[in-house]
């Protein structure tokens, strides 16, 4: 964006404005664009979810406002705006007011590091991936504020549940990403995507693989396991069924949102859908190559970029469109899976949620980190790191051996951990008759 604005002002018009003005203008433009995109994503996703879940439940869903009900979210938005804003008399007014802002602001900040297409990233931080998850953890504070300030039992219960769930599932999410970070050796999201060029084999691993933009991490055993764990953790962080315990409407009204109405409730709603969109998008970016896909790399090679300053701007447009198309297609596919799970599964109990996160997902990610280390050692390391037996192997042989070894490790670990987990759950569900006999016989008489 900086290059475009710079070219337009200083080269085309010849005004010779200083660099910081141009940086300010371009960043303001990008921010405005993103702030406009986020609510529209939310509007579209609510419509998408309602239509999809309706089809699964053999209904039609919203179809009255606009063509095929497409304007329904806008009607809902108008309804939200015109509703009365009610603050409970016993509420802590300032904290009650600030809580929705603290929940929404991090989700907007997370857009700052999300790449939309080749060369289309608002800020390329060198710790972008960590930034994304650090910022997302702030919204837990906002949820707790909402629960505490409402002075309502259900709100407090919902906030406690939400925060406990977010804090526990952050660990498997970040640990599963650690495996991917080990594969690439970078925390920058842009470099993470660039490492996923190739055709089923990443061209970063085996040089000379044809670049069709399909060298996604999901095609490696390490990436596959990391993706499964990450997606489950993302469901929990986005409070989607089967992990919608914080706002279980059949148990605790609406959780931390109970005492909110009007646009404050709308902000919570917005934050939730934007967060779901972002989690789907980041899953697509990390494991499915983001904007990578057949044709994007070829087009971007011919476009204007820092590596190739005398390209053609038409290719910039084409590569951008194709990249955004691939990213959004993957994101919406993941969101469809989320809706599908909502249509298919009942809600978990709190203790099941905690056991599953701490006793199954975290050990699984730890094993996955070990197999990521094996993968890196077999593919990248040479005699200087002390690995001598692979130095005469061809790259493709190294890749094959690494694939086989990590696949074996991951499958064995999964089966063993699943058995241990099932056995421990069965043990926990068992009732020791002697322990309960006294109390129960007493109550029966």
């Amino acid at each position, binding site marked *: 964006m900086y290059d475009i604005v710079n070219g337009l002002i200083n080269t085309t018009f010849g005004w010779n404005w200083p660099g910081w003005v141009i940086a300010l203008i371009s960043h303001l433009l990008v921010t405005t664009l993103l702030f406009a995109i986020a609510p529209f994503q939310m509007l579209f996703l609510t419509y998408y979810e309602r239509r999809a879940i309706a089809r699964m439940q053999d209904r039609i869903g919203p179809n009255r406002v606009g063509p095929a009900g497409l304007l329904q979210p806008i009607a809902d938005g108008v309804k939200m705006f015109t509703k009365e804003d009610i603050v409970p008399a016993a509420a802590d007014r300032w904290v009650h007011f600030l809580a929705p802002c603290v929940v929404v602001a991090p989700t907007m900040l997370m857009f700052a590091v999300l790449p939309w297409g080749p060369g289309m990233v608002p800020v390329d*931080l060198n710790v972008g991936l960590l930034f994304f998850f650090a910022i997302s953890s702030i919204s*837990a504070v906002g949820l*707790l504020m909402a629960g505490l300030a409402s002075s309502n039992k259900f709100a407090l219960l919902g906030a406690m549940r939400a925060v406990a769930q977010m804090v526990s599932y952050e660990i498997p999410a970040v640990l599963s990403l650690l495996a991917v970070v080990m594969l690439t050796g970078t*925390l920058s999201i842009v470099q993470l995507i660039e490492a996923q060029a190739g055709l089923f084999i990443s061209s970063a691993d085996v040089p000379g693989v044809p670049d069709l933009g399909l060298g996604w991490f999901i095609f490696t055993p390490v990436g596959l396991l990391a993706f499964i764990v990450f997606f489950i953790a993302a469901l929990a962080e986005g409070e989607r069924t089967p992990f919608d315990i914080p706002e279980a409407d059949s148990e605790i009204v609406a959780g931390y949102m109970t005492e909110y109405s009007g646009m404050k409730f709308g902000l919570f709603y917005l934050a939730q859908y934007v967060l779901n969109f972002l989690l789907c998008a980041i899953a697509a970016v990390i494991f499915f190559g983001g904007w990578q896909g057949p044709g994007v790399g070829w087009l971007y090679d011919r476009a204007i970029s820092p590596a190739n300053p005398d390209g053609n701007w038409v290719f910039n447009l084409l590569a951008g469109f194709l990249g955004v198309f691939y990213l959004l297609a993957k994101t919406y596919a993941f969101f469809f899976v989320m809706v599908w799970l909502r249509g298919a599964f009942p809600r978990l109990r709190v203790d099941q949620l905690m056991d599953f996160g701490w006793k199954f997902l975290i050990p699984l990610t730890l094993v996955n980190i070990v197999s990521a280390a094996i993968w890196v050692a077999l593919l990248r390391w040479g005699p200087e790191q002390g690995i001598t037996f692979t130095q005469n192997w061809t790259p493709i042989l190294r890749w094959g051996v690494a694939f086989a070894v990590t696949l074996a490790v991951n499958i064995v670990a999964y089966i063993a951990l699943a058995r241990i987990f099932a056995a421990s759950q069965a043990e926990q569900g068992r009732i020791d008759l002697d322990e309960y*006999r006294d109390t129960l016989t007493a109550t*029966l008489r």
Partner: protein
Amino acid sequence: MATVIQIIFGLIAALIVGAAVMVVTVRNVIHAALWLIACFFGVGALYLLLEAEFLAVVQVLVYVGAISILILFAIMLTRQVTGEGVRQLVGGWRLWLTAAISALLFAVAIVPTVISHSWNVPAPPAPPGTPEPLAGVAELGRAFVYEFLLQFQVAGVLLTVALIGAIVIAFEERARRRRVLTLAEEHELRKRLAHPPPVEAPAGEPAPAPRATPISEGEVQQ
């Protein structure tokens, strides 16, 4: 550019100091915790101003995302103990003693740094060949596993000990408490007590026998 940086530094410093003052002066404990979060956030912004991106992000991840949550949970669980609206938990000479000890501890940490630090701003250009300052992820990681390995390991062992201690405490709590039965389990238990199954497992049975009497989850679902 330098003046812009200085203005931004002044704003962030004012935020940090103001938030810190609010932490120790507001009456409501929860408000104090929220001001503390604002203070943590300001420190993160300060790291960002120093171009230590990784430290800034970790500051937000650890302090804002985890430790402040811990503080808020602790406040919620001990609300009855501390009491609302009490400005200080101790009074009289004890208050002054507490203040003196805290000030002394802080001085022990800060005075040697202030005295030994050479305050030449901006820093003089380093001679060629000096290593890069510890800012990036890779440098920090390398320093942890080569230079400061002992400290790193000690911190890790300390955290593990704390974790095990927490688990031990939780187990003791659980041993004193009975698990709450679900309705289905209670129903099943009552049924079994009313009509005891013919195969009561005696003490000396082989291994698969205990499975016959207790209720596993699968059975409850049936």
